[in-house]
């Protein structure tokens, strides 16, 4: 039973990490119809940036604050300088852009390898968050609880911003009807760039908080991003709520499978994906009739 | 037996009833127009009849046989064909090829995977005949994207005809066409075989009066009135809801 609660918490922690990635991806897709296949690169970027800050300042919190800024800036720049001009030039089908980011995936994988090689780095857990806490009868690392808390906090903030603030209203309007929002005098390009940046920053934030748990290495984005893709498809592309529940679903499945059925671990999330595709291809919260 | 019979059809999106208990019967060979203000549910009705949308409740019968939900291809195979409001053509392919593929759908050769498509002259021949019927035979070898809008609308109807339907649904065939193209279209539609049942959604009342005998008026997802054109033109309710003073 203790084992079960341990796995439950681990699953929750993994889910939150994946949620941060999925949220960024789905936010970008929902608003701009861009599926950034290279999203994992922002995760990696955030982790490396955080490591660098942590190494220079010795502060985890500085890393947490500053680390995500790097993917934010790069993401916003990418959107404003590369993707938006292409959209304006008519290369705007989702497929075009998704394939473009596929190329970006190659390029970023290459860049990261070039600059950082294949060494493993780590960010140490800050003193405040080290140690264990008794939760559900389990001695659980405090830091992992922090990760869970951070994920839930972000989920809350995001849903509040999107549902309750004027910015959120602009976002939701923009998802529905881009031209109309522009016609209302809102600088939609700025909004897009910022949202892209925020999506990237979320991934970067995930990278920083993941760093003390998993190492920082050049391939770290790749593995987790495929799981993220499974989550966004399961949750319904473009749907933030779907990403949250999808992340929970997938994260739990993966962790439980890893614990109780280690041989099937690999297949667990794909079985989930397949089942979803058979019974509900639009995902948990997706809408039918989406065109390519 | 009527060609098309709809009983108490409802389509609801959450609380919004786009189609609210609609009854409609079209006898064989009739030319029926379905008119109504925007949002009355005309295209939704077509989507329901052709199997693109599942109804919330109610029945749709084609020659007495219920429509298979979610399988527009089977609906076409059972004798009901449709042309769309927004052109849905194979743009990068020639006119002849568009028609040939449409005709091929009912030919056993459609399962053939190694023999060239061109080696089935019956299919090509049928495509040519339809093109002549719709006066498209002069532009058979041009790619669809090079056609004028009026020609594309003609092709849109022609493709629907390739299915040799017993019932033809046309969704605003004259939409966006020039007056000359419209006259042409009217003539072509009136030249179609008399035993073909036609249901036409149109906003252009000239087209409606030139083609149709009976008019059904929809409003808010329900039938407001059905009757011969003279009666509809004179119906006070209809005039109030839709037609406007010029046709009164």
């Amino acid at each position, binding site marked *: 039973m203790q084992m079960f609660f341990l796995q439950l918490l681990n699953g929750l922690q993994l889910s939150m990490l994946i949620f941060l990635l999925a949220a960024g991806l789905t936010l970008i897709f929902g608003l701009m119809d861009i*599926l950034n296949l290279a999203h994992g690169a922002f995760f990696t970027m955030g982790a490396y940036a955080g490591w660098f800050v942590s190494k220079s300042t010795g502060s985890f919190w500085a890393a947490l604050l500053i680390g995500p800024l790097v993917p934010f800036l790069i993401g916003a720049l990418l959107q404003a300088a590369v993707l938006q001009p*292409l959209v304006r030039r008519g*290369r705007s*089908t*989702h*497929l*075009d852009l*998704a*394939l*473009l980011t*596929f*190329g*970006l995936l*190659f*390029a970023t*994988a*290459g860049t990261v*390898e*070039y600059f950082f090689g294949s060494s493993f780095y780590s960010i140490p857990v800050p003193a405040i968050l080290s140690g264990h806490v008794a939760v559900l009868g389990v001695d659980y690392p405090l830091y992992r609880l922090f990760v869970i808390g951070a994920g839930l906090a972000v989920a809350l903030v995001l849903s509040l911003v999107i549902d309750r603030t004027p910015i959120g209203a602009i976002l939701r309007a923009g998802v529905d009807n881009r031209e109309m929002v522009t016609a209302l005098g809102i600088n939609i390009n700025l909004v897009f760039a910022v949202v892209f940046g925020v999506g990237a920053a979320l991934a970067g934030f995930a990278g920083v908080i993941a760093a003390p748990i998993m190492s920082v290495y050049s391939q770290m984005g790749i593995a987790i991003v495929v799981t993220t*893709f*499974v989550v966004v*498809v399961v949750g319904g*592309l473009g749907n933030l709520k779907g990403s949250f529940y999808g992340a929970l679903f997938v994260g739990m499945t993966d962790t439980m499978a890893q614990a109780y059925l280690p041989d099937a671990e690999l297949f667990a999330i794909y079985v989930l994906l397949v089942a979803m*595709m*058979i019974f509900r*291809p639009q995902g948990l919260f997706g809408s039918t009739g989406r*065109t*390519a | 037996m009527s060609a098309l019979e709809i009983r108490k059809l409802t389509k609801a999106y959450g609380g919004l009833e786009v189609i609210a208990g609609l009854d409609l019967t079209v006898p064989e060979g009739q030319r029926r127009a379905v008119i109504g203000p925007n949002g009355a549910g005309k295209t939704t009705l077509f989507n329901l009849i*052709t199997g*693109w949308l599942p109804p919330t409740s109610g029945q749709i019968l084609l020659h007495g046989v219920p429509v298979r939900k979610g399988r*527009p*291809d089977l609906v*076409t195979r059972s004798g009901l064909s*449709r042309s*769309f409001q927004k052109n*849905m*053509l*194979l*743009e990068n*392919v*020639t006119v002849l*090829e568009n028609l*040939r*593929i*449409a005709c091929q*759908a009912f030919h056993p050769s*459609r399962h*053939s*995977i*190694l*023999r*060239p*498509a*061109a080696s089935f*002259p019956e*299919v*090509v021949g049928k495509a040519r005949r339809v093109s002549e019927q719709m006066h498209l035979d002069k532009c058979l*070898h041009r*790619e669809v994207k090079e056609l004028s809008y009026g020609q594309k609308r003609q092709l849109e109807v022609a*493709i629907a005809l390739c299915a040799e339907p017993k019932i033809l649904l046309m969704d605003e065939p004259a939409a966006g066409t020039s007056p000359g193209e419209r006259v042409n279209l009217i003539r072509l539609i009136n030249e179609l075989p008399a035993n073909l049942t036609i249901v036409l959604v149109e906003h252009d009342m000239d087209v409606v009066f030139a083609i149709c005998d009976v008019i059904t008026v929809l409003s808010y997802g329900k039938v407001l009135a059905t009757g011969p054109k003279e009666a509809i033109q004179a119906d006070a309710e209809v005039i109030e809801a839709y037609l406007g003073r010029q046709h009164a």
Partner: protein
Amino acid sequence: MTERLTMDATNLAGRTPRSITVLRRRSYVAVICAIALLLLPFLSGDYVLTLAIEVMIAGVFASGLNVLIGYTGLASAGHAMFYGLGGYGIGIGTAIFGWPLWVTVPATLACIALISTVVGAICTRTRGVEFLLITLAFSQMFFGAAVKLRLTNGTDGMAGIPRPDLSSLGVSADDPVVFYYYVACVAALAFVVLALIVRSPFGSVLIAIRESERRAQAMGYAVGAYKIGAFGISGVVCSLAGVLQAQYIYFINPDSMSWQSSGEGILMVIIGGTGAILGPFVGAAVFVLVKQGLSLVTGEYNLFFGIFFMLVVAFFRGGVAGTFRTLTGRWR
């Protein structure tokens, strides 16, 4: 004269008289290419031969992928899974079951046909971007299985993949020239079969699906079945390329089914797109040459390949979708 051309045109549905001339010109080109292919070993050295072999194998892979991407309009980001499975099929069949090649190859292709049909049946329930993602996810699943499976030595891969035993013909497939002709024969066969398929009624329905799936369905076609068929066919052809590749380097490992491998296939299809059947081979040729060139110049393959990929997608005629759509009736 015009009359005769027009009458010829009536026998070839959808072809303009102008395109008949184009077709004739292309037949001459094809014949010249065939002759060049035949004579290549006598005209050049081993290095060119190895390049030619790589181009042909890549061409088969790209051709298989093109059936799905170019003709049906379904962009799969995971088709390298079939490429890799083909190679692994041979490896498992010969090394683990001990079957001779003439049993293993058909068995592999049959298995792949089944797998790709099942995977296709699941994936084709989605479109566009979701389709891209789900195919990617499937390929990652197979990739992961290949990495973890101790049976196939995980990341170390399987060595000793055998080439066909041609001793009855008095030659050895280990000889580069002999292997070259073997690959050329297989590639030509694949080419011919694919050419027949895309010109067939089945192929025309795939094109209709690409242009407007809803319209194809409204015409009365059970489009789901056609999409699965296209997926299955492309899977088998891609696996054939994988078989050839494994035999070429006597080796197979999980990298052959990586997302990078899938990406390379997509790029080849995009580059070569406008040429229809020959297009993928053209794309393969460009790709192989660029890759060779890149590897001579820099060690940073991924980075430059990625930039190249993005440039092609961004600037290639009409964008990616436009490139796919230039596979018009004229060029069939």
